Structures are given as C-alpha cells and as structure tokens.
C-alpha cells in the first residue's frame, strides 16, 4: 500500500512539474529555449541583432581599454601617435565614413562589409593574443583582454553569419576579406619597432571595432526599429 501511495505521489509531482514548465514558458523572454527536436525553432532577428550589438559594443569597449592601457604603459614619450596615422590593413575595404554614407548604403552591402571586416580581423586577433604575451612585463589586464577580444570576435562572426543568412535573399558573398601580413612586425627584434607595431594594431582594432559597433547599431535601428531607436 505504501509503495502505491509513493508512486501516486511521484506521478502527481511529475504532472505538476510538467504543467509548471508549460505554464511558465511564457515568462521566459530573454533567452527563448527551443524544445529539443524542434525544426523551426529560431531566434528572432531582433534577438540576433540585440546580441550582435551587445557583442560589438563589448568588443569595442575592450579594445578601447586595451589601447588606452597600452598607450599609457608603453607609448608615452615615444611619439607613436604621430606615426600611427598610417593605414590599417582593412583600409582597402570601402566602409562608410560618416552618417550619410552609412545611411545610404544598402543594408545587405553593409552586412557584407561588416562580415568582411570581422573576417579580416580573425587572423590578426589570434596572433595578437599570442604575441602580446611576449611583450616584456605585459600587464595581466592587456593579456586577458587580447584573449577575450579574440574569442568574442569569433562569436560575433558566427552571429553575423546567422543574421546574414536570415536577411540575405540571395547568395552570401564570401569574398570581402583583407589578408593581414603584419605578423613579422609583431615579432621584430627591435623593441621600439615591435611596440610601435602593437600600437598600430591596437589603434586599428579600436577604430574598426567602433566602426562595426556603429554599423550594427545603424542596421538595427533601421531594420528592427524603423529608424526610431
């Protein structure tokens, strides 16, 4: 008799749990969970853009801080800033340089551009994370930021590819991409030249991450909120 009662209790508990899960499903808003085996389970475009913007903002924040720390620690008095006006490796990509241009460009092109920039930074970020460790007495904060940026950039790239897959009606262009050949400069024997190479790279990273962040926000406001953010 007791076992029967226990089994009944268990059954009741299970039933309660299941019903609770079903009922509270509505309450979950931030991270909709797809039930297993569902084919059409997809995050909404709004969700995707939200996450992309969060990531791009984070990446820009990290690279900005990293640049500031590097500047403070290694670049003082070396006059790097005067020399750092030279171009970044992504300069060959024609990105909109101001608001008007950004508003005029078609969103698909803009998305492709964003993808191209992100892909172009994939390789440099990997090497940055490894080479920055060899800088003499590099602060721990710079080290982990480099690693973090590299990681987040990968995630952003994945997210962007998803978005592009949703938004693009036609074929996705994979050609927009700039190779990076700055690895030897990061490994120079002369410390001054090497530090300048890092400075330059970090400066470019900060700028490009700002660009990506801005473009994504523009796209989000345009596509999701209809220019009414």
């Amino acid at each position, binding site marked *: 008799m007791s076992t029967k009662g226990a089994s009944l209790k268990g059954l009741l508990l299970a039933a309660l749990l299941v019903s609770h899960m079903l009922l509270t499903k509505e309450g979950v808003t931030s991270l909709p969970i797809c039930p297993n085996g569902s084919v059409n389970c997809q995050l909404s475009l709004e969700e995707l853009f939200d996450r992309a913007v969060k990531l791009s903002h984070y990446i820009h924040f990290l690279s900005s801080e990293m640049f500031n720390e590097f500047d403070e620690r290694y670049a003082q008095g070396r006059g790097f800033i005067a020399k750092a006006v030279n171009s970044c490796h992504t300069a060959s990509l024609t990105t909109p340089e101001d608001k008007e241009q950004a508003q005029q460009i078609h969103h698909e092109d803009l998305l492709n551009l964003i993808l191209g920039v992100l892909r172009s930074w994939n390789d440099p970020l990997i090497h940055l994370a490894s080479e920055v460790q060899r800088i003499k007495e590099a602060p721990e904060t710079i080290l982990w930021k480099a690693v973090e940026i590299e990681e987040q950039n990968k995630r952003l790239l994945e997210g962007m590819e998803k978005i592009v897959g949703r938004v693009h009606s036609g074929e996705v262009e994979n050609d927009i991409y700039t190779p990076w050949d700055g690895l030897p400069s990061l490994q120079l024997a002369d410390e001054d030249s090497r530090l300048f190479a890092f400075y330059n790279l970090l400066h470019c990273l900060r700028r490009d991450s700002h660009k990506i962040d*801005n473009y994504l926000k523009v796209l989000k406001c345009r596509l999701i909120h209809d220019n009414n953010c």
Partner: protein
Amino acid sequence: MFLNEEDWKECPDYITSGQNSCYFNASYTSVWTPYCVQLASKNEVYDKKCFSVDEIVLPDPPVHLNWTLLNTSQTGIHGDIQVRWDPPPTADVRKGWITLEYELQYKEVNETKWKELKPRLSTMVPLYSLKTARDYEIRIRSRQRTSEKFGEFSEILYVSFSQIGIGCDHCTEEVEFPWFLVLVFGVCGLAVTVISIMLSKQPRLKMLIFPPVPVPRIKGIDPDLLKKGKLDEVNSILACHDNYKTQLYSDDLWVEFIELDIEDPDEKNRASDTDRLLSEDHLKSHSSLGAKDDDSGRASCCEPDIPETDFSASDTCDATSDSDQFKKATEKEEDLLCLDRQDNDESLPSLANTDPQRRHRNSQSENSHLWAPFGDSVESPPLSVHTQISNQNSLASTDFYAQVSDITPAGRVVLSPGQKSKLGRAQHEGCTEQNFTMDNTYFCEADVKKCIAVTSHEENEPHVQEQGYNEDAYFTTESLTTTVANLGASTAAPPSSEMPVADYTSIHIVQSPQGLVLNATALPVPDKEFNVSCGYVSTDQLNKIMP
C-alpha cells in the same frame, strides 16, 4: 595647421570659436580618419596633437528636462518624482549612429554639493524620498557610451513641490532622531542590568558576565609555601622549573649533560682530564655554595647555558656539597634528577640505587668511570666534563674515572686516559701527530692511530663486536669496548712503549639508564708496547682508522 594625408594645411577658420581657436566644420573631418593638428609659428612647432574624431566626441547636453510626481509618503513629508529628458538633437540617437549615456545630478537649493546618480542609457530616472518642504535643482549631462568624458551640463531643472500643491506648509519640522534620549535611557538600562547581575545570587550568571580572574599560580608550587615564606624550597622548585625547557633530560635521569670544550686544545694537552675534572670540581663546589644563595635561578640544577662545570656546582637541588669525588657524580645525577623532579619523584630512589652501583663500579674499575655521553648534548655549549674529570684526577690519587675527552658530533664519547695514562699521553705525543687539527680532544686517538701501525687485520673484529651496537647514547661504550678489544688483540705494536693502562675496563653491559657494568679485567692487555692508553677511540675515529 592640420595634417591630412601627409600634407599640412592651414586652419580654415580662426574666428568662429573665438580667440585662440581654430574651427573645423564637418566638411573637414571624417569620423574615423586620423588627424593631427599642430600649433606652429614660422618654423617653430609649439604643440602637436593627433586624434580621430570618434575619440574626442563630446555630445551636447540633453534637452527638455521635466519632472512628474510619482507619490508622496503618508505623512506628506517625502515624495518621489520621475525626471525625463530628451537626448541632444545633434546626436542622432534615433538612427543609432551614436549611443549616449546620461548622468543626473541633483541637490537641494541651498546646498553646495551635488549628488550624483550613476550613468545610464535610459532618458528617464526616478528620484526617491525628496523632502517636499524643500526645493531641488537637477542637471544632466551626456557622453558617448564608450568614452569617459562628459559633455556640458544641461540647464538646471527646478523642482518645487509647493507648486503642485502638496507643499507642506503645515508640516511639522522633521523630527530628528532623539539621540539624547536614546543615550540616556541606554546608559540607565545598562547600569541597572549590571548592578542587578552583580547583586544577583545566581553564581552561574555572574560567572558568565563577570568571569573570575585567575589568581597567579605556579604549577607545582603550593601557594602555602609562599605564604609561609619557605623561600628556599620555592627557589628550588622554581629552579627546577627552569629546566623544564630542556626536555632532553626527561628520559634519562642519570645521564649527564656533557659539554664539549672543543676550542681548548692546549688545556687538554696539558693536564689530564681527570686532573682537570677533580680540580675544577673542587672549585666549582665552592662556587656552588655561592650559587646557592643566588635567587636568580641561574644556579639551577640543569641550566644548559651555564658551563658544564656548574653542573657539578649547582646543588640547589642537592643540599649537600662536599667535594667528594663521587659527589660530583651524585650531583650530576641529581641535577638531572632535578630536571624531572616534577615528572616522577620515584626517580630519586632509582638514582640512589644507581649511585651505589656506580660507586661500586668505580671502585671496581679503579680508575674508569665512564660518563655516559648524552647523545643530544653534543650540540650544547662546550663540554668540559673532561676538565672536571681531570680535576678530580688531580685531586685524587687514584683515577676513578676515565675522562671523557670529547664527544663526537655523532654523540659518541671519547675517553682519554686517566692519571696514570697522563704520563702515557706525554709519551704519546712523541708519536707522530696526525689528525690533531681535527679535534684536539682526540689526540689520544690520533696517537692511537699513529701508534697502531696496522689495523687492517683488526677490522674484522670491531665489526663483529660492533654488531651489538645500540644506537642510543651508550653505544660509544661498546665502541670503546670494541676498540679496547682491538687494541688488546692487536699485534701491531705501537712504537712507543706504554704500559697498558689499567684505567680502562671494558664495558660489559650497558644497562640504561642505570648505568654501565664495567668489567675490569675483561680484556687482555697482552702487549705492553701496545699503546692502549690513548684511550677509547670514538667510533668516528675508529671508522676512520678502518676503511
């Protein structure tokens, strides 16, 4: 001048921004293009700065500040408001081109310091618990989200509750917390509690609140002793307490604390150890009388810091002080006993037993009385047992003792010959002196070494005999036994002829801790020329002799 693409250009507008300024309107700049500006005059450059626009953006202040009442407290003294504003029109937030953060500051009208809220993205913020009787000022400023520098402050917004009609004209002045009353009542209550506890008959409660202060008490001393003024007894007990530090002695009651006097080679060479032992002991016994009166506790039984001679001298634990040569042994034993007085008082009778044993042995052996070395004592300050022994020897005609001439770091004792062998020693020194530098107290062994020409064939024997080694403090006796046996059995005659000294007896049995049973005639001493009188070779020396 400003630079763009390697080309310095003149400032386009010196006027718009006022004096000492250069104005670049939007047509000259692009957001992500790096620029440098420099201030120069003819050929001299005063200052230079490089940047890109996105780094230096300072947004305009927010506009259209307003506030609305959320609710008021029941008493009507406090109220909550919601402040709203619009982003600066020049910042295109709607299209997402720039993202702004806002920081709000507020204060009462007649205050000087602004209160800050942390920066936030939203364009509205609630302010809680404002005093309705007072007026407030609010201002807001904005910055680019990834930047650190804020733009200018907005215009000040004035908040006045009376305008809405909930101004609290009839409100009473805010009641300050009655600190004074609280203090007074608190103190009174505490005093009452304390007094009641003190007066209460409940012992447990009293103990809890007022734990009894422990009366000073020395372990082992009956406070009555102090009261009755039996200072001597107290002193003795205290003195013994000092030695509690040296737990070394706790195990071996009768083991003496022997100090090595390694730095004094000449002294050893000059006089026989026994002589030194006896004479010094005589002296020390006098000093012991003086030490008796010393209250400082230095004249304690087993103070390790005091030179060894004081051991014999210290007799605070032992009232008797005569210069009997056995007294020294007694004293030493009792000194050690003193160390453990608190531990076991029955050690005394056992000591008494060993004493006669010892004395008996001494008489038996005539001139060898082995001071069992204390293994750990080698680390202690220089040993001067040998001196004591020598003193005794000098005083007494017969050699009761074999001096412990030294103790090796391993804790093995090296005995030197007694009175008779003093002569022998002098002759020994005729032998080539090896290993003298090693340790002068081992001179006898050195003599033995050089005098014993061949010891190789003796190796077997010491090994055999050393099998019975026990690794305690008394092993040296066995080594000595071995040595003596070796010496006895050795056919290699030492060059110098020396009467084999009957000073030494083999140690037949080691009865720890009561002492040793010496076998006076255990070993044959066949070779007269064999120089046994160098004494016992410590095991170290022995080991050196033997490969």
